[in-house]
Structures are given as structure tokens and as C-alpha cells.
């Protein structure tokens, strides 16, 4: 279990002192940097994906990422070099299918998810066998992050951030009313492709740490939480990023203190935030 590996490592670090040891343990710092970057990107993109009802695309792409990582590891290839192009292709494919192909969006995602998972497990079983590395692909681990991962993550996340800011107004217009956007001459196909590419990059970068099965929660939760109260797109976008960062920091701290897996800890904090904001909305609505 990756959690066991993580716990073993964490047992060397006394409770709470772990928080202050972030800067002495390289892997903790790497996890912090990658986690923060991915949380922000995922939250920004999440608002659009949730509103366009594409939230499950993130989940599907996470599974694709697992498949590609498993295959890359089995054949000794560089994980990111395989994962990124394949996940990008899968993102374009899923988006195209969701835009009214013969197979409906949710069925297409289920098809791609299950197939990728099956291919990944098949290849792993036939080669290295199910080991902790495979487990860490599924549930995430900060121990696997290398310095190169950090450099790649930060660079890719910066690309996502810059493109998101440059396309922000267009992403809003397309999310709100794609028919109108198309009618006014906006190349909606191009913008959808850009969006798919940004999501794929974020998933690939975040998957190693959060796990293939959990990465989509970073996309879905902050947006859903803030949408309980936010009434303007800008407010929701900014607050999603803020909530994502806070949830990550809290979840990561929880992981360090209790030796729990970082991915799951962050998701649990995100879930708690969602429940809190959901209840707040209910209370405000009633009053």
C-alpha cells in the first residue's frame, strides 16, 4: 500500500513537527509545490467543467492516465512523455464524443475509463505484477515525485494558468451559451480543444500525487462548493482557487500529522468544505 509506505516514512517524523520539517524533507516540499499548483489549475478549470456538465471527463482522464503510467512503467519509458500525449488525445476524443456523437458523453467516459484501467492492470499483471508503484498510481503518493516532476509540474501549470487567464472571457461565453458564442463568430471548436488540453495537462501533472482515482475531485469539489453561494462567474472562479489552496494546505497538513495519504486527505477536506457550504446555503435560503 502506498499509504503504508507513506506511513513508514512518516513514523520517522514526530507528529506536528512534521509540518515544520517540510523544508528539510525534499519530498515534502516537492509535494507541497506540485499540490498547490495542481489545486489552483484544477479549481479554475473545474468551474467550467462542472457547468458544462463535463465533470466526469476529469475522472475518465484520470483512468487514462493510470493506463498510460502502467504501460510506461512496464516498458521502462518516461511516464510523463507517454501520459501527456495519450491523455491529451483521450481528452479531445471524449470532448468530441460529448459534443453529440453517436455515443453519449457519460457512456463514452465509462467506455474510455474502464478500457484504460483494464489495459493498465493487464499490462502490469503481465509484466511487473501489482506492486506498490501501481498502487501509488491509483491512490497517489508524494514519495514518487522527483525534482524533474516538480519542474515539469510548475512549468505545465504556469502554461495552464496563463492560457486560462488569456481565454477566461471566452471560456465564460462558451460555458454560458455556446450557441450564442458560435453565432457571434467565436471559434468554439478551438476553445473547446484548448479547454480539453488544459484539463488533460492538469490531470497528468496532478495524478502522480493525488492518484488516478482521486485527481478528478480536485476539479469538481472546489467549484461545486463555491457555487453553493457564488453569484458571479468571476467570484466563483477566484474563490474556487482560494478554497482549493486552503483545502490542499489543510489536507496536506493532515496527511503529515496523521501519516494518511495526501490525496485522500485533501479530498476529505474538500468534501467537508462542500458539506459546510451546502449547509450554509440551505440555512441562508431558509432565512
Amino acid at each position, binding site marked *: 500500500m502506498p499509504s503504508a509506505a507513506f506511513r513508514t516514512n512518516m513514523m520517522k517524523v514526530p507528529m506536528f513537527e512534521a509540518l515544520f520539517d517540510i523544508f528539510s524533507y525534499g519530498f515534502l516540499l516537492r509535494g507541497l509545490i506540485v499540490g498547490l499548483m495542481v489545486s489552483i489549475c484544477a479549481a479554475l478549470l473545474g468551474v467550467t467543467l462542472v*457547468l458544462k456538465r463535463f465533470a466526469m471527463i476529469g475522472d475518465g482522464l484520470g483512468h487514462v492516465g493510470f493506463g498510460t503510467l502502467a504501460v510506461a512503467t512496464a516498458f521502462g519509458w518516461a511516464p510523463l512523455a507517454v501520459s501527456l500525449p495519450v491523455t491529451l488525445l483521450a481528452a479531445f476524443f471524449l470532448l468530441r464524443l460529448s459534443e453529440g456523437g453517436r455515443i453519449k458523453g457519460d457512456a463514452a467516459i465509462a467506455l474510455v475509463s474502464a478500457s484504460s484501467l483494464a489495459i493498465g492492470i493487464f499490462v502490469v499483471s503481465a509484466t511487473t505484477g501489482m506492486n506498490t508503484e501501481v498502487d501509488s498510481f491509483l491512490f497517489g503518493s508524494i514519495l514518487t515525485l522527483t525534482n524533474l516532476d516538480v519542474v515539469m509540474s510548475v512549468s505545465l501549470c504556469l502554461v495552464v494558468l496563463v492560457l486560462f487567464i488569456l481565454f477566461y472571457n471566452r471560456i*465564460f461565453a462558451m460555458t454560458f451559451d455556446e450557441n450564442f458564442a458560435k453565432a457571434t463568430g467565436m471559434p468554439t471548436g478551438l476553445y473547446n480543444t484548448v479547454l480539453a488540453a488544459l484539463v488533460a495537462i492538469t490531470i497528468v501533472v496532478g495524478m502522480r500525487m493525488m492518484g488516478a482515482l482521486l485527481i478528478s475531485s480536485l476539479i469538481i469539489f472546489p467549484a461545486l462548493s463555491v457555487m453553493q453561494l457564488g453569484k458571479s462567474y468571476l467570484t466563483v472562479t477566484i474563490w474556487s482557487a482560494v478554497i482549493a489552496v486552503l483545502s490542499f494546505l489543510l489536507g496536506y497538513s493532515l496527511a503529515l500529522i496523521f501519516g494518511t495519504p495526501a490525496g485522500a486527505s485533501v479530498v476529505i477536506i474538500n468534501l467537508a468544505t462542500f458539506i459546510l457550504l451546502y449547509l450554509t446555503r440551505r440555512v441562508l435560503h431558509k432565512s
Partner: protein
Amino acid sequence: MNALLTLESASFTYGDKTAVEGLDFSLMPQDYLCVVGDNGSGKSTLLSGILRLKQPHTGRLSYNETLHRNQIGYLPQQHHVQGNFPASVLEVVLSGRLGHKGPAPFYTKHDRALAREALTLVGAGDLEQEWFGGLSGGQSQRVLIARALATAPDGLKLLILDEPMNGLDPHARTLLYELIRFLNTERGITVIMVTHDVNTAMHFCNRILLLATRQVFFGAPDEFESTELGREFIRDACGGNCAICGFSHKHDEGPHV
């Protein structure tokens, strides 16, 4: 005066199928055209053609050379925005500016001024900071018309509305008809409106186009009413019960607006 828009024996396809054919009519500046017909008669396909999203399969569709693409405003068929979609009214109206901004990523002060001007024109200036999802049906249609108006920096010349009255209560319909009439008569905007509410619409428009996968009738409302075909269509549209069109009027009288 030159026509703003001319269709000559035009047809449009939807996939492999001909959606509408035999389109042969011209619109003059400041015309108010109502496009009527049953579901699947080719109304929305015609709009796609006029919006240049579809090329005519056969025939010709030509525009007056003074009509630029950014002078055509569009109100799509009311889409069901998710109840909790987080968007302020100003954000929605500003998005009308995007189609013609080129690669510039951000709104300028000029864009904001145009958006506010458009909101004021439709009588929704005070809604600027409101949550779009919290507006009534009539208010949200006004805001979407403001978004269409905001597309043209030098004034809109053609406004295309796809079933704008759907889902509105009679009072909201009356107000919206008044707004469209104001934009048509006072602002000189040519209007093309797809509608099922033929009984009320024909009291406002000066041209009717009846489609049934082909052009069945094009002309003035009184000509339409004087034909057996027109009378039958009007009768069918109401089903003999004017509660459907939302106004308590008899067929031979004007609406109580």
C-alpha cells in the same frame, strides 16, 4: 432603397437532409419579419443560414454591403441555464462583445460602456450587478437582448430572435413585444423573429414567412390573413383557444396590449 438581405431560390440542408428549400424573399431595412411554421419546418435552419453558420446548399443568400457581421445580433432559443449558474448580468451582456474583439483577451472600458448602454436601452440598467439566475423569464430575455445589442459598436442593424416568447407569462410577453417594437421603430433595427405565437406577432410585424420545409408564404400580415392558408394556420396555432397565445383577444381583433 436596397434590400438588407436577399434569398434567391435558396435551400439549406441539415446533415444529408434538405431542411428547407425554395426560399425566395428580400428584407428591407427596418422590416419586422415573423417566421412561423410547425416544429421541424426549417425555421431554425434558416436562422443558422442568415447567421452565416450554414451556407445555402443551392441558390443564393446575399447581404447588403453595408451590413457587417458584427451588426447582426442574435437571441438564441431560450436555453435552460443551470439554476445555479454563477453569472452576473454584466458578465452575460459583456460576453456579447467577444465575437468581434479579435484576439484581444480582456474587455476594455469601451466594451463595458457599450454593455451598460445596451442594458439601459432594454430597461435593465438597474440589474447590472444582479445574479442572472435569479431574474424572471422576462428580465433574462431583456438581458439577452442587451447582449445581442452589445455586439455592435456602431448600432445593431439586424436582430434575430429565436422563439423569444417561450415560457414567458402574458405580461412579460407584452413588455417584450413592446421592447422589440421600440428597437424596430425607434432604433431602426430590422427584426427577424421565429415564433409560435403568430396571432400576437402578426400585429407587430410587417412581414410574415410561413415555412413547411419550404417557403409557403411570404408577405404582409393582412395578405396572410386574407388567404385561406393563412387563416387556417392562425386558427390551428390557437387551437380555437387564445389562452395558448397568452392574450384574451378574438382572432379578428388586435391583442390587448
